């Protein structure tokens, strides 16, 4: 960077002009803890003179104190930011670094190589244009190299630099380098990464990092920095059709209504025909409004505000697309999902999905297989754990506009959010829409629920009893049904134990099976209510999310959650079936309240405190509430 300093000193105006026209390259570095990744980034920062004297002084002091290079500068310390990590000697999260040269500005995502951190690598790669993969020349291509390559390809990075590091430790052997290169090219071709450049380097010594090394006279390719400065960043998004998710509706007064968002595909001009998705209404762009004046044209990457010719309904989350090349709309997809939470993914459980500026409800309807990222084998699976990758079908609670991820990252990438914790628990890439939803239509039936219930002189409803084993759910539900029956009501009681003997006898007590258990019962209860019955459901149903799912199947006002609130000690003391004793002895696994959690309702229609109320009194109370709600006469 000496020439930069001279240029700055000579003519700052000229330097600034040149600098303001520079492009930006975002890349990630991946490799194992020992491949020298942090050292390489530290070296790039050091050699491009991005370090100041005080930072250098801190680096020298730290190198002596905790360094691993025997008192010599330990570049890794520049990069390993958090104190906990320094002590462990590994990078545990994604860190972003910045440097620039005369030609480009760079943002580097430093991502860990440790096995359990697939999540971080995918995160870092999601915004990168290029990946630098490090391998130790002494070890060659490892399982981990293959795993990183697969992830890089999965996230859609098409440019890879294989930096064969620590070449100084193999006497700068050409044969070693060429063997590793050949091996890697063969593998990369198999997983669809086309653009690979292999460079022999020593991050520690600086060989071929910024300047060609005298130690590798047989190598005639670019240096690492040379490659980063000149590699063509694939346009991709600019070349595609116009896409803009509407982020915010801009309404300063009655006379202006603009739609703000970031263009994620193609270009737009005033006069262009656009379609609003998913509503599929067409209109014309009138103005491209920015604070710096209206634009004649805007392209992918820019944040703009558009005004439209017609007063049509457009709200946050809708997508404006080229009318002659629109995106597709669907509510069922096949997607590859990376799971990022300690709590495993449960097919059937309702989650949220954010795609573009829209958040919708989503369930994983089917998990086809898990991918072993080391061998790329497909493995049968019922669930996904942290850092596992699977191919699944998803069902949304309403349709969204999308493009396949391979075509447009911003139109096909989504995150999965847990409804309770609100954490981001997964990330996915849409492959294609499933046609099934279009082909199975609802059969319209003339006699409807209201008609069936009216004939019985009642209204349909679902009374959902939840509580610990032994809380008294079934006892109370049984009395309620007897009383309703005696009063001439048409009822049905679905009891957890009974249903498990038949419909759900294939299910056990894992979290996955519990979710499926409740899904099936929720559906059956919905059918019963549809038949016009007062339906009673007595299931432990320990998870809030599943109870919410069951509630979602019912009509508004038709679902009453009855929390049979009995403290664990009381239920355990009663122990009518002797199950708590067995669970305590370890003879039953995943027993609610013992080694599997019970999540009490945060709000329910009816709460029964069984320590204060007899079963008989509880039943009377519930029937009184049904009467109040107008569900029985």
């Amino acid at each position: 960077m000496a020439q930069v300093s001279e240029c700055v000193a000579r003519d700052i105006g000229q330097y600034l002009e040149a600098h303001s026209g520079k492009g930006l390259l975002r890349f990630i570095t991946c490799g194992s803890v020992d491949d020298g990744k942090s050292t390489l980034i530290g070296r790039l920062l050091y050699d491009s003179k991005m370090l100041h004297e005080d930072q250098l002084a801190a680096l020298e002091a730290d190198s002596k104190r905790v360094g691993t290079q025997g008192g010599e500068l330990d570049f890794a310390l520049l990069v390993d930011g958090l104190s906990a990590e320094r002590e462990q000697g590994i990078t545990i999260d994604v860190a972003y670094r910045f440097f620039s040269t005369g030609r480009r500005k760079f943002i580097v995502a430093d991502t860990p190589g440790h096995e359990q951190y697939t999540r971080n690598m995918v995160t870092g790669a999601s915004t990168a244009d290029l990946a630098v993969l490090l391998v130790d020349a002494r070890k060659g291509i490892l399982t981990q190299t293959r795993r990183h390559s697969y992830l890089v390809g999965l996230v859609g990075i098409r440019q890879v630099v294989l930096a064969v590091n620590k070449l100084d430790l193999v006497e700068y052997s050409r044969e070693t380098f060429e063997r590793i290169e050949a091996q890697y090219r063969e593998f990369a071709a198999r997983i669809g990464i086309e653009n690979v450049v292999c460079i022999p380097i020593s991050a520690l010594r600086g060989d071929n990092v910024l300047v060609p090394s005298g130690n590798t006279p047989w190598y005639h390719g670019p240096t690492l920095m040379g490659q980063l400065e000149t590699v063509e960043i694939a346009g991709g998004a600019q070349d595609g059709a116009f896409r803009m998710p509407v982020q915010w509706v801009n309404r300063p007064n009655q006379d202006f209504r603009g739609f703000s968002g970031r263009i994620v595909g193609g270009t737009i001009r005033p006069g262009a025909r656009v379609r609003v998705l998913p509503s599929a209404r067409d209109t014309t762009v009138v103005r491209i409004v920015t604070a710096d004046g209206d634009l004649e044209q805007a392209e992918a990457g820019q944040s703009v505000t558009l005004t439209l010719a017609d007063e049509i309904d457009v709200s946050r989350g809708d997508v404006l697309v080229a009318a002659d090349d629109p995106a597709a709309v669907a509510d069922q997809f096949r997607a590859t999902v990376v799971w990022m939470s300690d709590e495993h993914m449960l097919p059937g459980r309702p989650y949220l999905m954010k795609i573009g500026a829209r958040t919708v409800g989503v369930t994983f309807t089917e998990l086809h297989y898990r991918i072993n990222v080391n061998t790329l084998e497909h493995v049968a699976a019922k669930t996904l754990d942290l850092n596992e990758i699977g191919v699944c079908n998803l069902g949304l609670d309403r349709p969204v506009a999308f493009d396949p991820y391979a075509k447009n990252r911003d139109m096909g990438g989504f995150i999965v959010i847990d409804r309770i914790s609100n954490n981001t628990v997964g990330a996915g890439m849409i492959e294609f829409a499933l046609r099934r939803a279009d082909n199975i239509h609802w059969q319209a039936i003339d006699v409807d629920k209201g008609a069936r219930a009216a004939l019985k002189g009642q209204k349909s409803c679902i009374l959902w009893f939840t509580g610990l084993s032994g809380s008294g759910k079934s006892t109370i539900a049984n009395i309620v049904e007897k009383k309703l029956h005696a009063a001439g009501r048409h009822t049905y009681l679905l009891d957890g134990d009974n249903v498990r003997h038949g419909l759900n006898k294939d299910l056990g007590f894992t979290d996955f099976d519990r979710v499926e258990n409740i899904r099936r019962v929720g559906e059956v209860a919905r059918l019963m209510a549809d038949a016009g019955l007062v339906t009673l459901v007595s299931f432990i149903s320990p998870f809030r999310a599943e109870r919410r799912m069951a509630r979602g199947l019912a009509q508004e006002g038709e679902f009453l959650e009855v929390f049979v609130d009995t403290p664990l000690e009381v239920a355990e003391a009663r122990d009518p079936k002797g199950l708590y004793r067995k669970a305590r002895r370890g003879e039953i696994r995943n027993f609610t309240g013992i080694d599997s959690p019970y999540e009490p309702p945060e709000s329910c229609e009816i709460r029964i405190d069984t320590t204060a109320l007899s079963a008989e009194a509880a039943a009377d109370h519930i029937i009184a509430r049904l009467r109040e709600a107008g569900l029985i006469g």
Partner: protein
Amino acid sequence: MLTHLQRLEAESIDILRETVAECEHPVMLYSIGKDSSVMLHLALKAFYPSKPPFPLLHVDTTWKFREMIAFRDATVARLSLDLIVYVNPEGIRERINPFTHGSALHTDIWKTQGLKQALGHHGFDAAFGGARRDEETSRAKERIFSMRSPQHRWDPKLQRPELWRLYNARKNKGESVRVFPLSNWTELDIWQYIDLNDIPVVPLYFARERPVVERDGTLILVDDERMPLAEGEEPQMRRVRFRTLGCYPLTGAIESDATTLPEIIREMLLSRSSERQGRVIDRDGAASMERKKQEGYF
């Protein structure tokens, strides 16, 4: 192809809009410095022709440079924006100052506690901050949307993965989110953007003759009569400017002749020390910024 500054601008606008769309009660932390000036300028662009749909919040310490306060009030008046100034009453009561209480306590009471009180008092669920990842190592790992517990604590081990441009701003009761629209900007980007967009900044960034005293190798501006002078200590007029702005007793000046933006940028590119060096609070001990951040500092 967009230039790197165009890409950064578009990303920041995207972040500002997303926060406003997803959060109920956002606020912009306005600290009057160059980064705040850029962040405010981006907010004006993001919501144009509407005004930014949130107030500015300045957590004052009563020890800011006088020129900063004058600049703040002029900016707010010029743009007719809502400004909330919050001063921690405990700080006033205890007369907290860096001279008798030291920089660590001073910063904790006025800034960290003051900020938490102000956010809680007004019930803000999202706060924009002008921090950049290139400033400091622990910042380099922080998300753009960074969750805070109801106690305003940051847990670096419990950060949400942040992919593509999909920001998850959903919160549980009592939680809030700090949003950093300038995460991917560097000091050079900031100055260049100020230059290209003619954004006004506090005149303290430009060199001028100012009265200073030298303490432990740091030049401190004698900004008002509260500055205690040692026996025989005489403020000297020197040609100085500031690379960062904060509380005047804790912010070191540098000797400089730079009076224009290109000269400031030139000096920065040729300088041998980083911008936070002038800040006394970063040197309070190893990993001090990380610890402060965990406790709720911005």
